[in-house]
């Protein structure tokens, strides 16, 4: 007999109740209409069938008889129909980089990424936004079909928990495949270490799709500030070969400089495409990332 009341324990990266309570007061910021007239939790500039009255206009043949304001007709003998405001539904795309490089770091970047996406997903579902998701690895991985309502939060957690971090990175190809699903554009949260040569192309493709994109660039301290001496053989976590280096001061200094240049280039790239670029470290607290960093960058409000 199946015990339908028994529920699995929430994963570690899931926001706890206190965190969720804080998140309930927030919502994802959308600065432009995305044209999805649907019953949602957001007021739209378009008129629709919601209960909110907007205006009257003269009746035209073909108008819905149910919208004729009979009270005005009784007073004026002219037919007017009621015009009501439309409520917009925002689609939130949660995109998770599941390449092997995300497994590195203490804690692993992947864990931090899942926790952040879980928190954002909760915020979106609680705001009656539609949440969709996808795992981006060497290609497009598992997708999370658009869902609306808090009831789908557990499914979102299960989706995130199922994703393994491994394999190579093919961000541009994966994003291209995701865009091909023809989901409505909306707000996209892309969490990745961007350690792929095609990362800028992937960002550009998401921005070009019409999403209000926030790139959460997560790095770990060991990667950003390595501290080894002597001769070492560096092994690519994604199987990208190895490299013998001499860990001298000059090389480490040059490496840190290269990291700075790289992140700076990415930031400028995102800025030119109106993409929010939020650099974070894997060892930062998730609450700090979500409640402070994302609010500072205008992703959450």
């Amino acid at each position, binding site marked *: 007999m199946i015990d339908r009341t028994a529920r699995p324990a929430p994963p570690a990266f899931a926001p706890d109740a206190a965190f969720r309570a804080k998140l309930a007061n927030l919502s994802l910021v959308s600065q432009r209409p995305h044209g999805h007239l649907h019953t949602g939790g957001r007021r739209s500039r378009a008129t629709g069938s919601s209960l909110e009255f907007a205006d009257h206009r003269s009746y035209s043949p073909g108008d819905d008889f149910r919208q004729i304001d009979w009270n005005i007709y009784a007073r004026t003998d002219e037919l007017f129909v009621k015009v009501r405001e439309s409520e917009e539904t925002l689609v939130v795309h949660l995109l998770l980089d599941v390449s092997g490089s995300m497994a*590195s770091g203490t804690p692993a970047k992947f864990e931090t990424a899942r926790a952040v996406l879980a928190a954002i997903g909760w915020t979106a579902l609680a705001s009656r936004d539609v949440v969709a998701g996808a795992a981006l690895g060497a290609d497009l991985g598992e997708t999370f079909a658009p869902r609306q309502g808090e009831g789908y939060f557990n499914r979102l957690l299960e989706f995130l928990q199922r994703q393994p971090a491994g394999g190579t990175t093919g961000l541009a190809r994966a994003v291209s495949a995701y865009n091909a699903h023809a989901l409505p554009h909306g707000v996209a949260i892309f969490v990745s270490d961007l*350690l792929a040569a095609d990362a800028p192309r992937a960002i550009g493709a998401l921005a070009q799709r019409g999403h209000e994109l926030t790139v959460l660039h997560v790095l770990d301290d060991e990667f950003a500030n390595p501290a080894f001496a002597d*001769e*070492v053989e560096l092994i690519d*976590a994604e199987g990208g070969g190895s490299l013998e280096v001499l860990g001298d001061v000059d090389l480490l200094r040059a490496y840190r400089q290269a990291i700075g240049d790289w992140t700076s280039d990415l930031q400028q790239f995102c800025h030119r495409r109106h993409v929010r670029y939020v650099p974070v470290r894997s060892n930062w607290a998730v609450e700090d990332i979500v409640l402070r960093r994302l609010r500072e960058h205008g992703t959450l409000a």
Partner: protein
Amino acid sequence: MSWAAPLALAWAGLTVAVLAFFLLRPRRQRVVVASLLIWRRTIHARAEDTWLAWLRRHALLLLQLLAVIVFALALARPERLAMVELDPPVALVVDVSASMAIADRDGTPRIQHARDEAGALVHALGDDRRISVITAGAVPRTLVAQTTDRAAVSRLLGGVEPEASHGRIDAALDMARSLADPAAGGIVALFTDKGPTGGRQPAYAGVRTVVVGEPAPNVALVSFQVRRRLDAPDVVQGVVAARNDGSTPATAEVVVTAGRGTPRGRSLDLPPGDRQILVFDELPVAAGYQAEVRAPDDGLSTDNLAFASLAEPSRLSVVVVGDEPWPIVRALQAVPAVTAQAISVDSFEQDTSAADLYVFQGFAPESLPAASSVLVQPPAMPVLGLDAPVTGDVRPLALADSPLLRSVDVGDLLSGTDVTYAPPPWALVDLRVGDRALLAHGVVEGRRIAVVGFDVTGSNISQAPWFPLFWSNVVRWADPFAPLPEGVELEPGRPARLIPHPQADRISVAGPAGDTTEFSTRQPAVLEVRTPGAYTVRQFAGQELVSQTSIDFAPRMVAPTGRVGVPVGPAATAESSPRIQQQVDVWPWVAVLALALLLVEWWIFHRVRGVR
């Protein structure tokens, strides 16, 4: 560039050990990183050249290999030829003549003053000066040549002692000049008690003379000879020469004693540097004579005594064996104290008389008799190493100071029938024709042997006025009773080799101090001559006395040889130091380079790579 120890280059093989350690070192650390994207960009931007990257990665290994190689090069002691500027060499000449033993009023001998002065000069010289030390004794000796070892120089100077002889300062200065030529910037310093005379011009320019000792007379006997008077053979005439080598006048008394008779004395005044001769006419015949010079305040008494004996020539029996012996016999009969007879070759075999000297004319006996021999134009004699005679007609070259050619004009010896021989190894060549000998002499198994190549009977050589003189020289040299060859005198500090009589098997030498030295004739008899006086040489055949000879120690060998005209004062030194080409050690610099390489390696290891 050359190597003083090229075998040390083998140490470069240690590079193999360094390479082995490199290959066997703990493997490098493997670090898994999220991505090599940034690393590759960094490496690419940092080192465009992969060779440079390889060099950078293996810098420590390369430095270690280089250090080992450079150390091996240093151990091989590389040298290079270079012009180096040297301080002028210095030669110290210390007079060790007998007068240097004179003690001044304070009791310090002059040799000690000389040591002190020389030591002070050595102390004042720079550390790089090459110093030579030469003693001016009867035989000048170089104790050390051009050394920079100050301790050795001081030690040698401290060990210099005066000899019982005169000092040959001129010869010592010649040696010093060859080691530190004043004309080439060298310094020659002479430490002596012989003051400047002011008369003779300096023969040794640039010599710094340091005179030691206080003014004092130094009276010496410089010669003493006795001879029978020609007009009265039973009366002996003695001739004594005395000289004052000191710096103050002296009044001396010369005393001559004949045997154990009454001494006869005469006084004379000797100004400094003066030499006077006294003749004692009425001396009796005696076995030996002694002369002594006595002077108050005389600094040196060693040279005040001399001995002499009447030269009583021994009669020699000479046998001439040949078919035409008469020219030689006639010449020998003119020699005093020689009894010469001629016998034919056939009768030589039956001859039982024991002559002292045999002359073989164109004939070679099967075995040489136990006497001296003169071989005139002999045939080949393998036993003596003589090859077949060769006739030649070339001008011979004479040996200087040949005892056989004394007062003989070589030019008259030319004859078309003379023969020459390849010089045997035992012989000293008196007359040389090309590489062959026309006249030679030597000692073979205790026998004095002369080989004469010129034609005595086939030419008119026997009519030459020198012919008897030549044979006189031959007889004097070949006298088997004389333990020292004619013309050789005992000289202090110089060993004398005695030639035994052919029949003697033992030699006993009694010295002037009463000491006796025994020699076996089977081995070379070398007499050490140190004490002045008369030496008596007795030769025995078993218990039978073969000969007894008295050899005078020449008194002139004791007396100083006179003053050397040398200037006093600072030496004239060259204005510039000499530059010579010599091997210069490079290895210290190579070793410093190796150490520097190790320091760089250490610095890279600890400062550049040491990031933890």
